């Protein structure tokens, strides 16, 4: 009996998994189910966007020119690049190259920070002009009934996305700390991989947000 209890398994594998692959696949399935809930979370807001754009197309056309396409495109490029570095961080750890993995994680974190800084300047400009969501809207110069709807949608959707970016940055910081402490290897990199999945979803959502707000046409 005591022999069975002393069956050794590496520290990173939990008791209830028979081997590493089962643990990894279980984690991946769990993460994908969480990502499904995230898609539906943002999906509700995309539905809100669809309804109000269908009812008030002229508001979206008139209001979107107040968004800076250069900043929006830059943010898209920044997030796509951060997805590349995140994928490379996972790949490096898969091959046991821990330093390269760490550098890529730090690069991802920095790019996420750049995204938030650009977002801060965009928000600050809008707040200064009074282009605020809902009842706080206080801006003249956009024609049409109810231009505040565009900014309600803008702040809600990019705000929720920004919160997800911040949460991702927190997790990536934790990964950096753990990675420096040597917790990961080519045998065990599941947390990095799962964070990668989350981060790619954040990028994916922005890929849709960008044309919907900045490129209304």
């Amino acid at each position: 009996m005591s022999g069975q209890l002393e069956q050794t398994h590496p520290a990173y594998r939990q008791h209830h998994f028979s081997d590493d692959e089962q643990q990894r696949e279980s984690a991946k399935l769990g993460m994908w189910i969480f990502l499904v809930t995230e898609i539906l979370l943002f999906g509700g807001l995309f539905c809100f966007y669809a309804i109000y754009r269908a009812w008030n197309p002229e508001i979206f056309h008139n209001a979107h020119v107040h968004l800076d396409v250069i900043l929006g495109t830059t943010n898209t490029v920044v997030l796509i690049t951060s997805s590349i570095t995140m994928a490379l961080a996972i790949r490096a750890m898969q091959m046991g190259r821990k330093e390269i993995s760490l550098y890529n994680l730090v690069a991802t974190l920095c790019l996420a920070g750049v995204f938030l800084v650009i977002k801060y300047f965009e928000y600050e400009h809008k707040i200064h002009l009074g282009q605020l969501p809902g009842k706080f809207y206080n801006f003249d110069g956009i024609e049409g009934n109810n231009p505040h709807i565009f900014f309600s949608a803008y702040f809600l959707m990019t705000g929720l996305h920004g919160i997800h970016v911040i949460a991702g940055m927190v997790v990536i910081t934790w990964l950096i700390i753990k990675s420096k402490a040597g917790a990961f290897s080519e045998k065990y990199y599941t947390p990095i991989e799962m964070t990668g999945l989350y981060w790619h979803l954040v990028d994916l959502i922005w890929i849709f947000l960008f044309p919907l707000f900045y490129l209304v046409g």
Partner: protein
Amino acid sequence: MANNENTHTHHILPLSVYLGVGTALLVLTVITVWVAQYDFGSVNLIVAMIIAAFKASLVALFFMHLKYDNKLYLLAFLSAIFFLSVFIIITMFDTLRRGDIDKIKAGPIQPKAAIYQNAPTADTTNIIVDSLSSVSDSTLTDTTKQ
């Protein structure tokens, strides 16, 4: 090796795949912005969404490994997309056809929202928003019903 060895070697994508897909995404971003300057009317949105969907599938298939992993994860992802599509499409069936039977339902009751009305009328209920003042923060006061 120890009995905790992986039963199958984990598929590691070559660097060229990641860099190639990343470059494709950046190029498609440029194309998205470039196409937006041309006005195709109501097709604008469809064109933008098609390009965005293609970029999203590149991210999902390659960066998120759905092409190479157990098909169950691809099923989960596609299910989410499917149910989200059902949600939006059926909602739009209603939204876009509101005025078909009863013309008065085609648009909102009040064309301009309450925040743009700077004086209370008999219709406004118990909220007055002072949105046209030059004070930086808008105040919200409750008034009792008339």
